[in-house]
């Protein structure tokens, strides 16, 4: 039993963080509500693909790097921390659907960053109405739930773009349409559950980033002649942020490791990871803006972008009520 990352896993963190800082800095999109141009530079996205980011957890036999979910969460935590744009999550999930459905070529073009995938979440259990993230340049759409996962052709779906709260993600609403391009049941590959854990990893990274932004500001900003972080009201808020960030990432690690080890209850663990990380990212976002005061309400600092992002990811795959209802069903 060891729930700390291995040296190899820590190495993923370092590599991803330095790539993001150099090529996709979070500050690049400050002060605009909707990022102009494509959501992510396709050249940079393909570079990420070449680094193996889209196939990290795919078995080698299916054309992937062959790592586990534990390694993938190290990547996605950094994507969340760094507010990375781009449809990394649907690409990883979509590639699994294609690969496990036996469509090796499709999977290969997804993990190469050539075919872009959007992420669809059903508006209600069983509904064809969906909310879609990373919709603009994608040609495929992945949708998944507890039963299984499927790829659709975006051209067959009826989607209307929306003006998103998080302007760095192209979003749309609409309905699924046409036949599935590929599909797998959750017994063959638990795409949905893996998606929950990866999405939770992004939220955990965001919760950590908000903690760090809040603590840094509280340590330098002075009022009444001393740093505001010396006041208990601010200090305790920072402590609560630290507790939530630690909890979110610890649970993500547990859920990922449980899934890799084939543990019985890894579905519950994943559900808890998504629920807790969503809450941690939301609450740390609120706390971080408040610690910053008026400047935190402006687009000149980073906290608000984490608020937008956390809000958006909390609506991906499964929302709070659905997650809790899974844990304690009514019957």
């Amino acid at each position: 039993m060891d729930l700390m990352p291995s040296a190899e896993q820590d190495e993923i963190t370092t590599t991803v963080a330095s790539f993001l800082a150099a090529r996709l800095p979070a500050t690049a999109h400050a002060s605009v509500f909707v990022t102009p141009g494509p959501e992510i530079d396709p050249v940079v996205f393909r570079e990420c693909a070449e680094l193996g980011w889209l196939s990290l957890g795919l078995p080698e036999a299916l054309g992937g790097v062959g790592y586990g979910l534990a390694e993938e969460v190290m990547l996605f935590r950094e994507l969340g921390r760094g507010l990375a744009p781009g449809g990394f999550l649907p690409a990883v999930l979509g590639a699994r659907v294609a690969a496990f459905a036996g469509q090796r070529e499709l999977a290969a073009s997804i993990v190469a960053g050539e075919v872009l995938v959007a992420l669809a979440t059903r508006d209600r259990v069983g509904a064809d109405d969906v909310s879609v993230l990373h919709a603009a340049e994608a040609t495929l759409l992945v949708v998944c739930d507890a039963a299984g996962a499927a790829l659709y052709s975006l051209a067959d779906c009826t989607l209307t773009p929306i003006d998103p709260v998080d302007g760095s993600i192209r979003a749309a609403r609409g309905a699924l349409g046409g036949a599935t391009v590929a599909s797998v049941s959750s017994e063959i590959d638990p795409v949905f559950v893996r998606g929950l854990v990866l999405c939770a990893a992004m939220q955990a990274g965001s919760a950590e980033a908000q903690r760090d932004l809040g603590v840094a500001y509280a340590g330098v900003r002075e009022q009444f002649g001393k740093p505001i972080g010396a006041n208990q009201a601010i200090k305790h808020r920072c402590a609560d942020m630290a507790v939530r960030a630690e909890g979110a990432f610890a649970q993500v690690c547990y859920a990922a490791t449980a899934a890799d080890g084939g543990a019985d209850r890894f579905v519950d663990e994943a559900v808890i990871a998504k629920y807790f990380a969503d809450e941690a990212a939301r609450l740390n976002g609120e706390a971080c803006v408040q610690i910053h005061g008026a400047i935190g309400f402006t687009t000149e600092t980073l906290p608000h972008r984490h608020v937008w992002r956390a809000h958006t990811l909390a609506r991906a795959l499964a929302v709070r009520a659905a997650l809790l209802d899974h844990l304690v069903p009514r019957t």
Partner: protein
Amino acid sequence: MDLTFTQEELDFREEVRTWLHENVPKEARPHGDRPDSREFDLAWQKAQYDGGWAGISWPADFGGRGLSTIQQLIWYEEYALADAPWIGACFVGINHGGPTLIARASDEQKSFHLPKILKGEVVWCQGFSEPGAGSDLAAIRTRGVIDGDELVVNGQKIWTSFANMAEYQELLIRTGDEQRHKGLTWVICDMRTPGITVRPISTMDRGAEFCEVFYDDVRIPLTNVVGQVGDGWSVAMSTLSLERGTGFMADILHATRTIDELIEECRHRRGPDGRPVLHDDEYARRLAAAKAEITVLRSITYRSISRNIRTGMPGPEGSMLRLQYGDLVMGLSRLAIEILGPDALAYVDRFRAGGWTGNWLRAFAAGFGGGTLEIQRNIIGERVLGLPRG
């Protein structure tokens, strides 16, 4: 204790209701604090002036309506019930700058400025906060040096709402060498004076009402000083609270209305499990709790106004109301966007129907507007409960 109104008050309510019903603008206020929102706000102020309703809390001597506290309460209640617009760019002139002039300005200053404010001819902004002097105003560093019959001002202000569309500013600057509260001066600054640069700051709710204002050798006539040079802290603290807390009732009734609309919405809107949201015990009770909380806030406000009428002094409830209201609007908008589910992915500005996400993003400002909630808690702890300072 008595909740009844006199016949005269009931008649007044009817009069107010009729006028508002006929005169409240039909179109929504434009968001984004662009010129069209300025025009909208001034036009609505002018309409109130023309209707005889401008400055309802201002003394009649200065062109206001000089209404009794109960009449003010009735006005604000009806104002909210009629869904009349947010005061917007006219806020500082009507509720802060004007009342300060009434308290401390010379007759010339009053007769020049007060009518313009009431008639909706000018926008005022406030120049108090600075980088490093937000909650702590005594740390102000923007300097004014007397040169002949002028003050020469250099420095920077921040969080100046509507500076980008204002004609005048209530400006607090340091004119002496003394520390902290001493050596400050309160002066009327014409925003068209050379040397002033305004930079709007965009906010997370896509607004741009907050501005930075830079002063580079800005020359202001000494005749614009209100009170004496060096007496600025006392002038700033003397701003009359003409409303006696009645204005808060408009915010409360607006929030009450929001909750009722949300409850109606939940009768039909379906949650992730397909049931109407109102059939979900958790959401129904969270809505009920919000309804209870806003109702209690109404009762506190009534008690506060009653106390104010008896004693003529604002009671300790001001900070309590601010604190509870701040918590409530944050909680309420959070509840609304949770209920909205996938619909909350889209941004809708707060002046449009269904503008829940805009409202939610705006609520992030409730935590620091008018002093942070932490500072309200300090005030209650120290000034109301008498606990020692930290």
